[in-house]
């Protein structure tokens, strides 16, 4: 990708996020998702909080359907791809799938809290933590005891 746009969403409003760091010159877009607004009935206080986060970021702020707005923005900037950050939301995956029909999408990850790629049993927190703890402390916890 030579001329990507950044699609900024609600799981990474960090001005030092990987998308901003890796592509400091790329035009960036936030979309207030009409679908989510209708579904979640978010209160004004939540919207104000998000808006305060947005105004500290170098993003254009729009409102509408996410896929349509992102693709329009990409066309406006003659982009050859879309860069965004990872999100666990199923809607995110759905949007990425549709976007990929028009343009390549690169999904960047923020630094992991637990830097471990192997299998972790998620049936209960205790089982997760048994594996995750050492990685969360970067191995330091046992050293200090």
């Amino acid at each position, binding site marked *: 990708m030579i001329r990507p746009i950044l699609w900024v969403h609600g799981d*990474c409003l960090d001005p030092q996020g990987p998308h901003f760091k890796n592509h400091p010159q790329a035009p960036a877009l936030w979309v207030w998702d009409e679908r989510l607004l209708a579904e979640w009935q978010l209160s004004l206080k939540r919207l104000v*909080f998000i808006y305060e986060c947005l105004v500290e970021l170098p993003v254009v702020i729009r409102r509408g359907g996410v896929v349509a707005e992102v693709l329009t923005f990409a066309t406006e900037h003659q982009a050859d791809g879309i860069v965004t950050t990872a999100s*666990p939301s199923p809607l995110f995956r759905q949007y990425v799938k549709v976007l990929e029909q028009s343009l390549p999408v690169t999904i960047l990850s923020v630094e992991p809290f637990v830097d471990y790629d192997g299998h972790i049993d998620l049936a209960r*927190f205790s089982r997760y933590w048994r594996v995750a*703890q050492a990685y969360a*402390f970067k191995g330091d916890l046992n050293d200090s005891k």
Partner: protein
Amino acid sequence: MSKDMRRDFTDRADLIRYVGEQFPEAAARDGRVSPIRGGRRAAEVQLNRLETHRYATTRNFLNGSVSRLSPYIRYGVLNLAQVRDWVLARATPHQCEKFVNELGWRDYWQRLYLKLGQGIWEDREPYKTGYSPQHYQDTLPEDIQSGTTGLVCMDVFSQELKIQGYLHNHARMWLAAYLVHWRHLRWQTGAKWFLEHLIDGDPASNNLSWQWVASTFGAKPYFFNRENLERYTAGLYCRRCPLYGHCAFEGSYDDLAHNLFPRNESPTAQPGRKPKAKRR
């Protein structure tokens, strides 16, 4: 194409006015705004207030040294690794143990969200309360919404949720337990109400915590008694409650389990007084 929304504001009031105009439906439902400010700068101010060394011993108390970083973490203004690195740079790993463990809860719920998707809205397991899912009602009671139950604690929590958009973890647990186990509300209805108002409202952390309280994700329902609430609030609400001594939360855990879950032949509900049971 929609037009660009404003980015420059003279002050917070100007921004709030604009957001209210742009989202009139939300403003009409409730025009109030939280004192909690958004943005990385505000996040860093909050991070600098963190008292890691006091966290483990005070976090269960309503006036304890909790971080109040959840809104910033929720939106990735700060990520878990940044917060972890920040505390580890300022205290020994041992002093940070409980706090990092709590950060782990968020990571855990997020991993489950990735796996379960919309399944976080469905009961993960049967209720362990002796009741079927159909037993629970769908509508949030009016006295909960308006904060007029007469129980000072619950009424204050309801107001704080709506005005501040933040509740201490223990208050979330008490309010959720009251709604599910005393008022027989479907956890999904309570979860949706929280998500409307909590600034840190996160589908995974919220819904799965509600499921944990309800017992659809965990071995036992979470409940509490007056003594537990009075202790961790330092009597703040009980002292001025007209129902003190005869409220719905009076009694031993065994008595309450018997009353709340009469269909459980051998009550399996686990009282909430000890950190282990109370805090997963």
